[in-house]
């Protein structure tokens, strides 16, 4: 019994050493990966554009990119998205907390890699996807299931990875 405090100390210090060695990952991973896409109807980001239900007969495979005109890393990311578009990958854009005019200006300045564009002024779609910031990207398969999440801007080295993820789902 008199050795119990020592044993407890060892346990606690071991846990703390582990934590110091593997720093906490503060990114929030979505639990929707592997689940059906949320059953929502997206409204277009551009005035007069059509509504689009997320779940439909032709769900994917498609890449969904959450972005915003006020998001600084999204500017650099736009180039990678353009690259993906050149390689034939269809990308849906969802603009978080944005005005149509600002979205239009952003796309005019940085290029428009999106096949379709939706607006999410109150982060509802973002929350439904289990995303917690911009930019984040998801890959959806033909059966409307979310297969991959990429948190943060897509860097140059991520482009082939996302391209491959999309291609694999085409089979």
């Amino acid at each position, binding site marked *: 019994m008199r050795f119990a405090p020592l044993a407890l100390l060892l346990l606690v210090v071991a846990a703390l050493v582990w934590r110091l060695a593997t720093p906490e990952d503060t990114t929030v991973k979505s639990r929707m990966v592997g689940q059906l896409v949320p059953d929502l109807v997206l409204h277009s980001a551009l005035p007069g554009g059509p509504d689009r239900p997320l779940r439909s007969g032709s769900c994917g495979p498609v890449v969904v990119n959450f972005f915003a005109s006020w998001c600084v890393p999204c500017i650099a990311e736009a180039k990678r998205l353009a690259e993906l578009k050149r390689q034939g990958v269809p990308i849906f854009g969802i603009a978080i*907390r*944005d005005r149509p005019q600002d979205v239009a200006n952003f796309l005019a300045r940085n290029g428009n890699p999106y096949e379709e564009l939706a607006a999410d*002024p109150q*982060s509802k779609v973002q929350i*439904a996807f289990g995303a*917690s910031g911009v930019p984040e990207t998801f890959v959806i398969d033909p059966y409307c299931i979310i297969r991959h999440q990429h948190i943060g801007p897509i860097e140059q080295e991520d482009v082939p990875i996302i391209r491959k993820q999309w291609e694999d789902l085409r089979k």
Partner: protein
Amino acid sequence: MRWLLALLLALAPVPLLADSDLPPAYWANRQLPDPRQEAKARGLMEELRCLVCQGQSIADSDAELAGDMRDLVRRRIAAGERPDKVRAWLIARYGSWISYRPTAEPAAWPLWLAPAALLLIGAFLIRRRIGARR
């Protein structure tokens, strides 16, 4: 509260690096007209972790996402949904980490057993000291 955002952002690779200039969602900073519903909503908001300023609840956080979540919680409770269901819905999206109240999952059982276990161990330790000898 911006400084907290700035500090945490400086340390963690959270993608959000600016704020939008849209106003907060309608129900982010307004109370529901029905006080009982507002109390339920408030109770739930205090138990949900803000995903941006990760050391606060969404009730206290100034982050935009927290405001949008407060709006979501209030709308759902106003529509009659039970707080437990809203919590479960959010946990299904972000994991149990978002709930300050530990869930009923097996990983949390030791937490709830700990008080009883500690009391028993303590009682056992002191049992030998009290009363036996005269």
